[in-house]
């Protein structure tokens, strides 16, 4: 019967509606839609398809009536999810960056000898990972280093040389002449800076290496933000409707837990938002790229609190969120509700 095909189309269209709504109204809606149809109709009209789909999506954004706190929760959840979406996009983008090469080998290439080196991997709460190394070599010259790097496939910038004098600090003693030699290099997604400070007795060569943005960072941040913003409101709406159907004490405790989760995640979300602004502002500059998820690394992001504040609050907030979601799930021993007639969805 042509009715069966039409019914199948309508049931599929109703998937645009939230599951709870489908369970309650679904069958009745299909009945009404079939009654409205022309005899012999096998497919819904295109305008009807659009309208039904749009109504379903709109229903996902509708909050239970008459509760201003739910509205506030929806706004905050949307913003927080947008910020965490940006962080996720940023993290995924940096997974695609070039991995840093072996720093010890690189240092020896640049400084030329088996000199004593010191290294550190630095992360800041605002930028991606960078590696810093230095070596002592009073007889260092730029040329052998440049040749070694070119041989290894690096593209070099011209050398800049600056002469200076450093006061000795002792009266009567002459100032020491010094030279600063700098150049940059880059190679398939990696950037490098050589900065040497030379004087008659001493020579220190500093090396900085980091992975450059391969163009995916900003689009990934935008995509992640939009995804988070889009999901925030329907998720709050679905949770709010579920809470309404819980027994009073469980409803109150679940609502309280969700409020605590939002409170915990608010500060990290603000940190992420600040980093999004930095990421766009510093795009294209010759420094380690500003990323969003770096806010979770240990550091003095705020002029207050411990260095692990963002990470700690994120973990706390995620735990509270998981507990809230667990509280929203139906308990297996609950008696079936009267509106749970076998229906669409």
């Amino acid at each position, binding site marked *: 019967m042509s009715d069966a095909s039409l019914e199948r189309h309508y049931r599929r269209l109703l998937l645009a509606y939230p599951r709870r709504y489908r369970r309650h109204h679904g069958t*009745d809606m299909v009945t009404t839609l*079939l009654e409205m149809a022309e005899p012999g109709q096998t497919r819904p009209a295109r305008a009807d398809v659009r309208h039904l789909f749009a109504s379903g999506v709109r229903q996902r954004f509708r909050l239970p009536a008459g509760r201003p706190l739910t509205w506030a929760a929806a706004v905050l959840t949307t913003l927080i999810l947008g910020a965490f979406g940006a962080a996720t996009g940023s993290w995924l983008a940096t997974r695609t960056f070039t991995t840093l090469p072996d720093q010890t080998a690189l240092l020896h290439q640049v400084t030329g000898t088996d000199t004593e080196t010191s290294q550190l991997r630095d992360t800041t709460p605002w930028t991606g990972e960078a590696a810093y190394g230095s070596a002592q070599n009073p007889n260092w010259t730029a040329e052998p280093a440049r040749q070694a790097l070119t041989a290894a496939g690096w593209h070099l910038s011209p050398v800049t040389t600056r002469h200076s004098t450093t006061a000795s600090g002792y009266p009567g003693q002459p100032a020491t002449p010094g030279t600063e030699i700098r150049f940059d290099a880059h190679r398939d997604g990696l950037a490098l800076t050589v900065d040497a400070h030379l004087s008659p007795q001493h020579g220190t060569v500093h090396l900085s290496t980091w992975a450059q943005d391969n163009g995916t960072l900003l689009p990934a941040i935008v995509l992640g933000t939009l995804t988070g913003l889009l999901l925030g409101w329907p998720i709050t709406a679905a949770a709010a409707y579920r809470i309404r159907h819980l027994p009073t004490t469980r409803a109150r405790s679940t609502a309280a837990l969700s409020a605590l989760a939002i409170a915990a995640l608010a500060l990290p979300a603000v940190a992420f938002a600040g980093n999004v602004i930095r990421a766009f502002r510093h795009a294209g500059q010759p420094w380690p790229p500003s990323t969003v998820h770096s806010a979770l690394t240990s550091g003095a992001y705020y002029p207050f609190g411990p260095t692990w504040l963002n990470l700690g609050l994120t973990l706390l907030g995620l735990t509270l969120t998981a507990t809230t979601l667990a509280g929203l799930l139906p308990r297996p021993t609950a008696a079936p509700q009267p509106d749970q007639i076998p229906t669409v969805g």
Partner: protein
Amino acid sequence: MQEPTFLILTALAAQPLHGYGVIQSVTTLSDGDVNLRAGTLYGALDRLTEQGLIEIDREEAVDGRLRRYYRLSDSGAGALSAQVDRLRRNAAAAEAQLRHRPTGEILPGLTFEELRAGLRGLQGGPA
């Protein structure tokens, strides 16, 4: 209260109706002006149930399908008559305002300007 909502409550005022019945009734009541779509209808039914203005009357199985009938609740009837009063008041006020509007003709064949000129002529005539 929006027009579709008003019409749905009106449709349910006389007797309980099912989904398609409401749509047909609204079309008749509005003289064909308002043709509800299923999405709009059920969105309104859901909201009105939440607000307590309508409630489920009964459910029937027709041709093996579920058909749910809705009816106007007491508070729904109160809200509807309050809206009727408001609309009637507004309509009467608008009608009164329109009567004060200087129109082309006061009486058939006599314009406002002619009437004024005539009155002035009466005033300025010989005592």
